[in-house]
């Protein structure tokens, strides 16, 4: 239990991930499914950044008057790449949703199933 309390930050990201996954699976509205996907992505980014943290650490921007320890630069770079990919997938998904709305006039899953 103390291990769990020590890693409470990690647990918070799991809870966020679960909220996103639940929205993705259970909500009938496609826009809200996309928002659920984005929440899941945010949870993963938060997890990676949290893992790269060091107690009392500084941002990994080296110079004359900064001293170690530094946060892990890899996790920051990884998340930066991830954010850009998330933006790209969100843009394409929104374009697809607009296309679906143009064809069928709705974004609700149950209404879409009736029109197939």
């Amino acid at each position, binding site marked *: 239990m103390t*291990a769990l309390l020590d890693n409470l930050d990690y647990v918070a990201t799991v809870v966020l991930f679960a909220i996103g996954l639940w929205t993705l699976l259970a909500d009938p509205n496609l826009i809200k499914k996309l928002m659920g996907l984005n929440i899941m992505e945010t949870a993963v980014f938060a997890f990676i950044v949290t893992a790269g943290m060091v107690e009392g650490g500084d941002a990994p921007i080296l110079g004359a008057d900064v001293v170690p320890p530094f946060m*892990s630069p890899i996790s*920051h770079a990884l998340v930066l790449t991830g954010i850009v990919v998330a933006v*790209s997938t969100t843009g394409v998904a929104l374009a697809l949703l*607009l296309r679906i709305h143009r064809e069928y006039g709705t974004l609700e899953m149950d209404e879409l199933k009736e029109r197939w």
Partner: protein
Amino acid sequence: MSPRLAAAFVTGLALPMIAAMAALPRHGSPDQPIHTHVAREYIESGPEVGNLVTAVLLDYRGMDTFGEVVVIFAALMAVLVLGGRREPATAPDVPPSPIVAFIVRLLTPFIALFGFHVILTGHEAPGGGLQGAAVLGGLVLLNGLVFGPEHARKLLPTRLLPSLQGAGPLAFLAAGMVGGIVTGFALGYPAHLPLLHEAMVVGVEVGIGIGGALIFSRIYLALEGG
């Protein structure tokens, strides 16, 4: 999926994950594996001054970032093929509140300046190409939301737009080839020629920044039906 089934599935997935989180090394301690291998190597033997995140993005994992700028370029292509709204959105029906309009108009040049600053100083201060691109893209989006997409379109360089959209991948390709000629490795940065090294880093950053900002703005405008 029915909400009850989804809730059962998500709970069944989340509980083992939470249990696994308790088994991870204590969060924030400096002797976790994430800090003791590659990251330590980068911090100890990397550049002595500057932004290590940018160094990881452009030097150590340059190929990764190259792929990433190709991904956003491909996303723009996909959005343009799919098309946006049927009838292009025009200026908002309700004119923006005078306060909001004034503040946005007042802040636009400062936000743009900040975006370029973030792009140009990204290799030695907090920032970088994609961060600046997000600032500039957000500026275009803000103007589009307040004054309508037609106004936001005027902020973009119309004539240069088609060629500048590919600036990110093209700048990377150019830097990669220059690096290949000088050092013998694609995307290699010549450490013994500080001026050329600086020029290559800034060139790639500017390419990613300008290209990325235009791609973000263009995705928004394409979704609005333009």
